[in-house]
């Protein structure tokens, strides 16, 4: 981390970049948050540890409007989001100096809590995690504290960067579509019950939308009057019901499966399932597609072939 900080400071000091986009120390080891650093003093607060899960690419939209270059730290999976934003002209490559930072799987305090520990005072980001609690010390295996998304890691490669820092590790040890398949196998009643239970937790805090690098519209359709679907207050109930389906549809073919939506949901709704379902369908019907892998690729919903499957495929045994 010190090496990364030193390199960032060096680039800041020699004027290569005007600011650094990274993570700031939080109250605890486990809650670093995204931040811009413009001075050496501010850089004192800079941190990069195994809890730095936040995807910083979306902040580059605002950073692209600022004078000078912004140094941005991107993990391998974040670099896909960056590329996708680049493909959609939302950010300026010239305004970014990318340090591709190494990642060995990011940790989640929620996972630590899920292991049954209460009254957590401090936690390390080591393997295993050493946890100090009101009730004594404990250990949690690294893998067990890792975010779900890291179990289906996209790999060690950064798809875009100016320089690399640190080692990465492919932490995938699970089938990416396993959960989607499990739901697909349910009866309509079970599916409905599952999503009813999950979605009824939603409080429309918009955290998923705000964090999502694909949800980067200047003004969300749910906030505009273009579809008579505006206002968070219940003028009508339309947006409440359809928000998540529409959101998933709007990012379909553009979502890089970064998993931020599920990570930030205060209610723990597995929102990534909607996106993964679309990704799985797209892969099955229109060929393997990873948003952000190639800036020049044609998106699956902005292209077609004359031999595409008919929508009736859904009722004829589903998309396999």
């Amino acid at each position, binding site marked *: 981390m010190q090496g990364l900080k030193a390199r960032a400071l060096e680039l800041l000091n020699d004027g290569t970049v005007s600011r650094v986009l990274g993570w700031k120390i939080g109250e605890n080891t486990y809650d670093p948050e995204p931040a811009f650093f413009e001075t050496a003093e501010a850089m004192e607060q800079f941190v990069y540890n195994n809890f730095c899960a936040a995807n910083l690419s979306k902040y580059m939209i605002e950073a692209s*409007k600022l004078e000078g270059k912004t140094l941005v730290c991107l993990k391998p999976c974040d670099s896909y989001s960056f590329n996708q934003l680049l493909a*959609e*002209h939302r950010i300026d490559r010239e305004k970014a100096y990318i340090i591709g930072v190494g990642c060995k799987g990011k940790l989640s305090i929620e996972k630590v809590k899920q292991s049954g520990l209460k009254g957590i005072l401090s936690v390390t980001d080591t393997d295993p995690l050493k946890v100090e609690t009101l009730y004594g010390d404990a250990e949690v295996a690294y893998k067990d504290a890792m975010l779900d998304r890291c179990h289906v890691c996209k790999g060690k490669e950064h798809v875009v960067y100016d320089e690399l820092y640190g080692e990465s590790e492919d932490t995938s040890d699970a089938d990416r579509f396993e959960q989607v398949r499990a739901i697909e196998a349910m009866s309509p009643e079970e599916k409905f019950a599952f999503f009813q239970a999950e979605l009824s937790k939603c409080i429309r805090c918009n955290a998923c939308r705000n964090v999502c690098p694909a949800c980067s519209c*200047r003004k*969300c359709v749910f906030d505009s009057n273009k579809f008579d679907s505006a206002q968070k207050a219940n003028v009508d109930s339309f947006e409440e019901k359809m928000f998540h389906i529409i959101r998933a549809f*709007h990012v379909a073919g553009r979502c890089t499966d970064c998993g931020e939506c599920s990570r930030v949901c205060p209610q723990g709704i597995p929102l990534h399932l909607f996106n993964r379902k679309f990704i799985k369908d797209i892969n099955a019907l229109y060929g393997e597609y990873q948003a952000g892998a190639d800036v020049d690729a044609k998106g699956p919903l902005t292209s077609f072939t004359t031999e595409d499957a008919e929508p009736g495929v859904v009722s004829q045994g589903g998309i396999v």
Partner: protein
Amino acid sequence: MQRIGVFVCHCGSNIAATVDVKKVVEMARMEPGVVFADDYQYMCSEAGQAKIGAAIKEHNLTGIVVCSCSPRMHETTFRSCAKRYGLNPYMVEIANIREHCSWIHKDMQEATEKAVILARAAIAKVNLNAPLQAGESRVTKRALVIGGGIAGIQTALDIADAGYEVDIVEKTPSIGGRMSQLDKTFPTLDCSACILTPKMVDAAGHEKIKIYTYSEVEKVSGFVGDFTVDIRKKARSVDATKCTGCGVCQEKCPSKKTPSEFNRGLGNRSAIYTPFAQAIPNVPVIDREACIKFKTGKCGVCEKVCQAGAIDYAQQDEIITEKYGAIVVATGFDTIKLDKYDEYAYNQSKDVITSLELERVMNAAGPTKGHLERLSDGKAPKEIVFIQCVGSRCADARGKGYCSKICCMYTAKHAMLIRDKYPDVNVTVFYIDVRTPGKNFDEFYRRAVEEYGVNYIKGQVGKVAPQPDGSLLVQAADLLDNRQIKMKADMVVLATAIEPDPSVRGIATMLTASIDTNNFLTEAHPKLRPVESPTAGVFLSGVCQGPKDIPETVAQAGAAAVKVIGLLAKDKLTTNPCTAKPDELLCNGCGNCAKVCPYGAITYEVRQINDHGIREERRLATVNNALCQGCGACTVTCPSGAMDLQGFSNRQLIAEVDAICR
């Protein structure tokens, strides 16, 4: 708030018999924005339109809803009516309570309820309508005719005679089409070539007509008044500017075993060939598939014998890009394949032929020099059987569901000609129905029976079986005599169903002209706009639109020409104002809309904007209204909803949905 007038049409009894129009009026009055509602016998009539006009003035209407027939029928009528009375034409919406309601429902209460809902949806939409201004687009004063048969030639001549430039694109090496293959024509029995050739010559010599033979349309873009077309001029391997048409090359060409397309495969042609003697242009082409020079590199006889030095083996396909204001499709027909009709032994016996093949056999320039003879052994037939409706009027997948229309008449012609020239030959025609609507047509058929002694038997043939002695056993039932017939014939002629030339499918796709399940092009209205495609600027001529004979084809060709002339006579066309429109405050500039635009109408530019006090440079989508055709593909691709479609906006469509589901 709009001030809306609702006008409910009785359409005589077409609507009023099933829909309680008074009730619709009454219910409409209760809808938001409605300040006036009334009904009338015929809204589209002069008096009906005057009623609308009076209401616009009297009630100061800002929008109107007409509950009547399909908007495809009278939307234009009511829009111009509104315009006459000072209302923007795009403030008019139609509730289709005839085709979509009164004509399909029997129960009055049910139909009335539905009509009320349809009216409500239209009212909800008009509440959100905004006045739109139609733009203008230019008209390229040149027409393209695809297909150089009698339909295409006639259309081109008529357009050219009116003073406009016309190009004909013909895929074979010569214009002339199917008609050039025919021997005689009904009901006058004049020689087909004698009446066609002068037209071909006229077309070739006309200063306004340019003919591209051995060429195909490869790409079409643009829209009415301003099409851009790529024409592939296939390499002829002969320099048309040097060739004198002497024909020596064809005589000397050593490769003479290619079945002649012109003679329907009944004779052979050389590798370098003109399809027939009167071909226009009289410039041969080298069939590179058959040419020894192209296959082995050795030969070059034609080049050696050509005095003019016209042979050019190195010639390449050429792409010509040209602009047109109108396009006429005249791609014609072919006979269907008979592979699935084993019972007629077409593939087993050379003596079973199609009627089109018989035309070639009867023709003096044909494979038998006009002698009626069996193709198997060259013997003169004594007994000829004609079978009608082969593949026509079939409900099964083997044939076509429609009547091919021309077969009854040409069979009568064939029967008559044979009996006239060979009185000792017996001619039997097996028919299901004899259909002869047309001037002098039934008289013609009766002459075949009464004067020429052609034996007509009602009953479809069940089977044709080649016999060891070379004859053909024809098995049929005489339905009027109630007896089964087994007769020996020397020759059997099949009145084979016709179908649109297979090339029409690709052309229709390029032109986005709609096509029916039989591959016939659809007309804009089956009765009122029979020579226009629903796609603006595309017109139909000849059999590509439906089976028809020569007189009908020529008549339709003229009609299509008149429509083209009417279009080309205009200097400007008003464009559809229902185009896509981006909201610059919402646009992300992400580029997805341009990816789905079929017209390349969307571009991006960086502009300074003021977003509620924030001034910044943004990359924004811009729509070219002259190019946008208003499909709306971009509106759904746009994640922020910045792109909307005028006349069919998100809010308008949602209002309709809400009104229907209320």
